[in-house]
């Protein structure tokens, strides 16, 4: 397009600023104190306000540190995502490579049934899970929340992985089968290695969903198993809102995701869009 097309950068840069400014603002707030905040919006550290590490010290060493919610978020995210990936990849492989027929129900109907579970608002199962987990003694535990997240992420894993497996050529598996491998062996030894990019992308996407989830966490945890999003929201009930501490906690939640976006941008974008191109 050359020179004539340069103006198309204007809307792009404009939207980039709109995206980045709030994140920049949040990062700055975590280094402010009450004076820096109450004297109006200050943007330039040292010149307009004196940056302080107080907020960062308080969230790592105060009475209620960010360490417990951080650990919970990591553990619950890893447990639920690993389980969803193993189950979902197997299910997706079955749907991709075999033709099922149960009465009038065929592969497409099973896929539709799995995908359509997204239509169910999480609050529907959330209230039921509250009672179920209470009866099982799993309320406010990492295991309980992980089980619920497994149910939330499994349809997505099947969906993403089925799209991926459909594009993996079947020839190499057939070769493995002729050499005497069982279906499970050919999945683990042949299909999984060549599908690694899809598996990693799906793992990261579903991990992000678990990491950011708020509704189930606020229904099903309250002290031992609280995750980062819940911890952020809980700060606001304090008498005076400590903006700087919440900002620091919010950053603990979002910085890993920004790093992920930068390093695996391609995998995440194609994963996010893959579901919609059908």
């Amino acid at each position, binding site marked *: *397009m050359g020179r004539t097309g340069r103006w198309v950068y204007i809307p792009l840069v404009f939207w980039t600023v709109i995206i980045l400014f*709030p994140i920049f603002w949040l990062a700055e707030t975590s280094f402010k104190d009450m004076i820096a905040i109450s004297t109006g919006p200050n943007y330039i550290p040292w010149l307009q306000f004196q940056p302080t590490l107080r907020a960062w010290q308080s969230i790592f060493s105060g009475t209620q540190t960010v360490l417990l919610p951080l650990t919970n978020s990591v553990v619950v995210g890893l447990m639920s995502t690993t389980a969803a990936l193993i189950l979902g990849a197997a299910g997706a492989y079955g749907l991709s490579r075999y033709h099922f027929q149960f009465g009038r129900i065929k592969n497409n109907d099973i896929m539709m049934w799995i995908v359509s579970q997204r239509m*169910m608002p999480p609050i*529907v199962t959330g209230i039921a899970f509250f009672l179920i987990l209470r009866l099982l003694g799993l309320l406010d535990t990492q295991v309980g929340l992980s089980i*619920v997240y497994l149910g939330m992420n499994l349809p997505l894993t099947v969906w993403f992985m089925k799209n991926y497996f459909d594009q993996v050529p079947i020839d190499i598996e057939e070769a493995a089968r002729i050499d005497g491998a069982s279906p499970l062996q050919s999945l683990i030894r042949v299909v999984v290695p060549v599908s690694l990019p899809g598996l990693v992308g799906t793992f990261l996407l579903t991990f992000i969903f678990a990491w950011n989830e708020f509704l189930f966490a606020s229904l099903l945890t309250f002290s031992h198993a609280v995750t980062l999003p819940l911890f952020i929201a809980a700060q606001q009930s304090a008498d005076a809102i400590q903006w700087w501490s919440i900002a620091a906690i919010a950053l603990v939640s979002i910085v890993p995701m920004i790093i992920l976006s930068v390093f695996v941008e391609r995998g995440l974008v194609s994963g996010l869009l893959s579901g919609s191109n059908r």
Partner: protein
Amino acid sequence: MTAAERKAPVVAVRRRTRVQPGTGFLAPTVGVLFVLTIFPFLFSVVLSFSNVSVTNGLSIQFGSLANWTQLIHDHEFWVSLSNTVVFVVVAVLFEYIIGLLLAILLVQRDLRGTRFFRTVFLIPMTLASVAIAFTWRMLYNPAYGAIDAFLRAIGINGPVWLGNTHLALLSIAAVDVWEWTPFMFLLLLAGLQGIPAETLEAARVDGATWWKSVRYIIIPLVWPVSVAGILLRMIAAFQVFGRIYVMTGGGPGITTQSATLYAFYTGVTEFNLGYGSTLALALMVVVIVAAMLLLAVTRRSVARGQI
């Protein structure tokens, strides 16, 4: 008995008695989904048709329509529902329009820095909506926030965004637009890349105005992918909860209270599990009807050649 079974009974019998190959791969997933989604859903349905009491231990007496009759006369439910619908329509509409405009501007241009922009546009979608909501709550703050400060600098007295009964819901919807417009943009851009350059070129040569080539060429061509994107965003927006919980808690009054927020307060804060389930199920019915309406209207207008 299905038609297929009547026509070919031998095959049907054989299929039923023998385990189909590959079932071992699929069965665990289907089993887990039954336990973790179908079962809680049915449990929720039972709760909504029961008198649930938690005062002396848990007691569930099935066989009551009380919750559903209460729902019909519950003014707060209808307000919450209409808040949710306004939120969905405003958020998804702006996400689609801005996303489409950006996609049209950028299609078939070899820009430098594509990877940089894609990365930036991806970031909001990967962040916790609760963290984002908190950030915007600060930005909207009339005393400390950057938005009103900016308006003051150019001589405008900014409103109290989240305290104003007319503005609060729209201000929250704007945050959804911030987070999810890039999704529509990237989706539509991918869809537009599939259109041959000659098609767009031909329209330009034939003297079609910009608006006409958008209306009669681009929109029809990206319509399938648009419907998918709108449907996905619509379903997600109907479930809005964390954003509102952090930014306003449903206030001022109940002007920003979404259906999920109302069900949450009822079920958990007031511990009214039966009515909370009823509110949640009512929202689910609305989501399904809205999705079916969208698909039906789309199909009809495609058939009539309007799109």
